[in-house]
């Protein structure tokens, strides 16, 4: 399994390299200028952080559609904190925003876990509610660059050893979450919960705690993304992050995280986010007008899911073949394959 998964992520990474390669061939500055290099790393940073959080939620067989609204709320909160207390250390402001995001995520998680209702419905509801709260709070007010400290705005664009600070933040988040998922009991239980929630309950796994944790983490990362948004764009209006939820889910799906939970990696999701945004930037460079961008992104998402299906089919065929050629010593020999012909697989997920 590891190998196949690795291949899946390698596939996206390869696609990303091809996009960068082709675009650079057309327009060398895309990669080989200081600005090009910076934007290549910097542009996806926020979406990467969101995608990592979303991936964790999706792995548990849930989804959080409210992330765009959470980002908007926390980005605005960041600005207001700086306005209210200009001397507050940046770290404190960031922590407050992250905590606020975690709280909003926790609300989602609590409703989902305790009322046992589908996350899609709940987070669709809180998508409206959180956005409404931001609008009510902000009204026509807007946070402008002048409202926030220079040093904070500097973080949005500064580079350390040629790598933008926000990219470093994204990478650290990615590594930390990936490490947790791979090496801790809690991480494996997140996968188990998504793989079969009923079985997880029957096994006595702390399903509720895991769900709360996943949603809180997703919310906290959306909060962090809000801070990053404020730092990078320098202005925050009540519409920040509007409609971003589908982009994030798209990135996660492109990254090979199964929408029905249980499989996929945060690294894949992060690569998916990078691929989506890099393609977005590459299209105008290779001469495809702006307007067609979304169409290309759509094709990409559908292509990625189709690819996943092909890989999964190949894997089950391999597993079946293994059972045929190398029958376990105890099971009576027989070449009857499992109910995993293409037809069956389709039914199972349809």
């Amino acid at each position, binding site marked *: 399994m590891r190998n196949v998964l690795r291949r899946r992520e390698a596939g996206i990474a390869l696609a990303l390299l091809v996009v960068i390669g082709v675009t650079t061939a057309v327009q060398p500055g895309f990669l080989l200028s200081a600005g090009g290099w910076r934007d290549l790393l910097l542009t996806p940073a926020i979406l990467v952080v969101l995608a990592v959080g979303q991936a964790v939620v999706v792995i548990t067989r849930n*989804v959080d*559609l409210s992330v765009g609204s959470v980002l908007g709320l926390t980005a605005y909160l960041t600005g207001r904190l700086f306005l209210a207390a200009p001397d507050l250390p940046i770290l404190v402001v960031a922590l407050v925003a992250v905590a606020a995001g975690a709280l909003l995520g926790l609300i989602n998680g609590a*409703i989902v876990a305790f*009322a*046992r*209702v*589908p996350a*899609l*419905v*709940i987070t*669709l*509801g*809180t*998508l*409206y*509610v*959180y*956005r*409404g*709260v*931001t*609008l*009510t709070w902000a009204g026509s007010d807007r946070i402008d660059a002048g409202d926030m400290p220079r040093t904070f705005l500097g973080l949005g664009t500064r580079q350390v050893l040629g790598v933008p600070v926000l990219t470093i933040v994204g990478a650290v988040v990615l590594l930390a979450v990936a490490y947790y998922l791979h090496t801790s009991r809690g991480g494996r239980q997140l996968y188990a919960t998504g793989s079969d929630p*009923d079985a997880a*309950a*029957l096994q006595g796994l702390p399903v509720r705690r895991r769900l709360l944790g996943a949603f809180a983490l997703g919310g906290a990362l959306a909060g962090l993304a809000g801070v990053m948004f404020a730092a990078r764009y320098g202005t925050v209006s*009540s519409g920040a992050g509007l*409609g971003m939820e*589908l982009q994030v*889910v*798209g990135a996660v*799906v492109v990254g090979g995280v*199964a*929408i*029905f939970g249980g499989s996929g990696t945060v690294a894949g999701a992060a690569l998916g986010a990078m691929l989506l945004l890099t393609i977005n930037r590459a299209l105008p460079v290779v001469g495809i*007008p702006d*307007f*067609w*961008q*979304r*169409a*290309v*992104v*759509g*094709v*990409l*998402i*559908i292509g990625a*899911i*189709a690819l996943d*299906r092909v890989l999964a089919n190949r894997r089950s065929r391999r597993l079946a073949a293994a059972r045929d050629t190398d029958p376990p010593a105890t099971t009576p020999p027989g070449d009857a394959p499992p109910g995993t012909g293409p037809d069956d*697989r*389709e*039914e*199972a*997920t*349809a």
Partner: protein
Amino acid sequence: MRTHARPWWQRALLTREMLTILILVVAWIVASAVVQGFDGPLTITYLVLDVAPVLLIALPMTLIIVTGEIDLSVASVVGLSSVTFGLLYQAGLGLWAALLASVLLGAVCGAVNGALVAYAGLPSLAVTIGSLALYRGLAVGLLGTTAVTGFPEPWTDGATENLGESPYPVITLGLLALIAVFAVLLHATPFGRDVLDIGRSSEAARFSGVDVKRTLLILFVLSGAVSALAGVYYTLRYGSARGDNATGMELQVVAAVLLGGVSIFGGRGAIHGVVAGVLLIGVLGSALRLEGVTVNVINIVIGTALVVSVVAPRIAGGLRVRRRDAAGQRT
């Protein structure tokens, strides 16, 4: 053996749909009493005109969600059909022909979704997030910066005109007809039973001879075609064909359907509940706007209504749920 465990009136009243209808009635009564201007005839006219596209799309969406799938690309199909309708009209095609072609294109869009979901077996949530981007991209790409306007008056008027002196727009008739068609389809035909069975257990449905794949394909085609019809209506109502028409409407439709008592897990739902759900969102919006409440509060109200409508029955049945201990129930 008894046919029913409960008397008919309990079966009719103690349903999830009834809750939405009840809330709708209460909201209407309260709004009429409290909100100035709500009881005027214009309210009904605008309500119908406003909810028409959402209502139209919600009908096939109900069936799709009942099978346990979802179609998030509907609003993009609205945009794409609006653009093709406009472009074809501009190119000199007759309006009926343009309408037909747009609806056909919508059906094709639906068929693409349906084929990917039913025959390639891909998860509909992911597929239609992809086609949401794809169809919107095509719509915006085709029309670029321009909008097509100048549709003939009889057509644009037809989209907004009232029936004689009544407060009901002409399109009310079409809406009622489609509601009836979908209600019969879901609740009184073998096809509708198949749809419900697929939502509850697609495997068992297959073993009963239901062609699950074809059924799903049909539903997605219906969804695409009806969304395209809504796109034409949209174009005529606003007299403007644009690539960004109805952006974000998919979430409104899903919210209305779920508010109407359809289970997102599939296998449960009724057309009358969905109609009530759509109207409820319309009435809330209309009443709150009249009260001068801003869009943000309307968002909060709709979002909260959605969450409460799902959570409340759970809390009401909480005692029972706890005793039955759902963990063991599904094993």
